[in-house]
């Protein structure tokens, strides 16, 4: 691949996403103060000691932003992983097996999708014991419905190609057909979708935290930080806007990358030259 063929928008996306990811990985090294350390007064303005000022309890906002990136990105990534593995495997199985399996899985997914995700998540999370694992699983499963729909649609398309029929005639099992014949041909579409789903996970997590059912304090996370600092807005203090802006910037950056990938692989056969 020629680096010069990457458009400028994609470069912006790649660079800015990389910054977020690096900040998340090396959080303890970069952050000047501890995550929950009270280091100053309440809502101090930006200064040389506190680059982004302090929050509602007098913690350094810059440090909390960096730790927040770590929490938010990790949980969103894990939830995306859960949603993709379950969603795409079940979706492709439904497409390949067909018949009743397809009907039962698809109608179950319809059922889940008919309930507004956020409300559904709120109910489930308030019933289940709190914890990171529960949070990730609930987010992953709810989002898997979208991945299921997409991968089933792509797999149905690939499934009617002659090479899949040839594999069936050879006597290949379903696992081979799904993982070796269909998955490689659906991958480019799924990878582009991966970026978008990841962003929805970040937004979803932030919404849950804002409502108080996501990450629990004192753990820093962007949605929760907006919640903690939102009362400052009344007094003209913009501390809540900083994590909000970070969420928006991350969303845009990942979207720019996803757009570029999607453009490169619009064709189903895609990839290697295509016909």
């Amino acid at each position: 691949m020629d680096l010069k063929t990457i458009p400028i928008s994609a470069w912006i996306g790649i660079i800015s996403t990389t910054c977020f990811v690096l900040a998340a990985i090396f959080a303890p090294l970069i952050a000047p103060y501890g995550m929950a350390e009270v280091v100053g007064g309440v809502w101090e303005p930006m200064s040389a000691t506190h680059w982004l000022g302090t929050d509602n309890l007098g913690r350094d906002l810059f440090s909390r932003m960096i730790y927040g990136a770590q929490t938010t990105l990790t949980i969103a990534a894990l939830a995306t992983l859960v949603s993709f593995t379950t969603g795409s495997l079940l979706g492709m199985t439904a497409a390949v097996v067909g018949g009743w399996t397809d009907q039962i899985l698809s109608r179950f997914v319809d059922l889940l999708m008919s309930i507004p995700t956020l409300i559904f998540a709120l109910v489930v999370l308030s019933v289940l014991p709190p914890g990171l694992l529960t949070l990730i699983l609930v987010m992953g499963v709810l989002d898997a419905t979208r991945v299921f729909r997409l991968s089933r649609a792509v797999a149905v398309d690939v499934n009617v190609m002659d090479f899949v029929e040839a594999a069936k005639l050879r006597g290949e099992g379903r696992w081979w057909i799904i993982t070796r014949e269909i998955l490689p041909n659906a991958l480019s579409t799924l990878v582009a979708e991966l970026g978008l789903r990841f962003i929805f996970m970040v937004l979803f997590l932030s919404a849950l935290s804002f409502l108080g059912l996501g990450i629990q304090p004192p753990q820093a996370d962007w949605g929760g930080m907006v919640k903690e600092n939102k009362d400052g807005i009344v007094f003209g203090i913009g501390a809540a806007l900083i994590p909000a802006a970070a969420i928006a910037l991350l969303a845009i950056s990942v979207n720019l990358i996803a757009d570029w990938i999607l453009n490169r692989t619009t064709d189903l056969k895609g990839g290697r030259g295509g016909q």
Partner: protein
Amino acid sequence: MASDTFLDIRNLKIGVTVREPGERPRDITIVHGVSTKLEEGKVLGLIGESGAGKSTIGLSSLGYGRGGVEITGGEVWVNGRDILDLNRAGLNSFRGKEVCYVSQSAAAGFNPAHKLIDQVIEASLEHGIMSKPEAMARARELFAALSLPDPDNIGDRYPHQVSGGQLQRVMTAMALCPKPDLIVFDEPTTALDVTTQIDVLAAIKNAIRVTGVAALYITHDLAVVAQVADEIMVLRNGETVEHGSTKQIIEDPQEEYTKALVSVRSITHEEKVPTDKPIIEMKNIVAGYGSGPKILDDVSVELHPGQTLAVVGESGSGKSTLARVLTGLLPPRSGEITFEDRTLTPDQKSRPREDLRRIQMIYQMADTAMNPRQSIGTIIGRPLEFYFGIKGRKRDEKVAELLDKIELPADIAGRYPAELSGGQKQRVCIARALAANPDVIICDEVTSALDPLVADGILKLLLDLQAREGVAYLFITHDLATVRAIADSIAVMYKGRLARYGTKTEVLTPPFDDYTDLLLSSVPEMELGWLEQVMAHRKMESAGN
């Protein structure tokens, strides 16, 4: 008309910008300086394989380049002016008035929401050539000249209400209606069944004669163009190979390439005598999809070891369904398949692996028959691994051996299907079938998507492999020339039933039943005046009418 030389293409060069994903766009030239002239009322045939540039040249006479194609040099003089100098408005008033176009797929060329007649007369009204009643009258005349049924009222129908062959003729009427000086026919009969093709061909020829229009006739089939053209230009890779009168090209070709084109399908094959025991026997097969109508009705055929059974018929005759029944993808409603001495399980899913191995299949579209994400080595190697457990180095050696059998270099194993040509792809599919060391290979229209010379190579290879490996072929095709070349026995199918069945000599020797006669007589022959002879002796209307 301004002059006798109506169309004058001088040193035409056409280029295209290729944009492959992940690579920089690059310019390539697809037509390298082609020149030709066309006189009033004459028909010039442009012939060549895919990629020869024939359609591109045809479209350039309308001053048009399709999909990023750009005319980079030369001149196209029509009626005494260079149309490449015309601006958009000039081109608009020129296209559809002086030059009209008939495309390969009429079904895609008509707007399904409008009546045929409105579309046929649209250009004439748009250019103000005639009034609406005049245009309607002319359209009806043309419908009659093109032997369409009920010429006075057929125009009131919608495109989906007429057959494919009829639609192609309506499209010809559409092109003729504004009284153009030149019509470009771009493979107008290629998508049609053979018995329909001959009707359309005769209609087009008649219409050209009646209206005295000049025409460019583009096709890949030399036998077809020989029936309509006065002159033939043979193209290859965007260059003129040979240009001469139809008589000279057919009877006395000068260039090697033209000679090869003229003598294509000259494969001969001694018919083998049926053995005592067929390897596959299909008895009284009745089959259909879901609860739909019967697609196959009481079909019984036998396939003998090491021999070829050709199943011929038009689209919709049930020949591919017969293959699906044999593979087990479509279990029959009744009837039985015997494989050697035992009954073959009707459903593919419950057949033992050994049975699956012994019956292999090759598809029409090699493109879609190979996973684009697998290397050739993987594609051919998988059956070895799957059926025989051959892995690693040994597998690679076997793959190289198979590649050698299909006359491809061993280093192709590392490449991907998209990097191969059409003929190479089909060879790889043959190798994949051979890898299973089968007794029977089902060939479903394996040569119909290929250029004649490439198809010839594939047929030779198949015959050669049969002689060496003793494999039997169930060969499904609509092309009788192919059947003559390779079959030992023939089953002619018509509307789901066997119209005629027997050894090659039996089937191809008169007296014929009406359908076989129609089918046999419809295959274009490389002979001047063939079309007229056949049309004069027809007993049965083709199914497309």
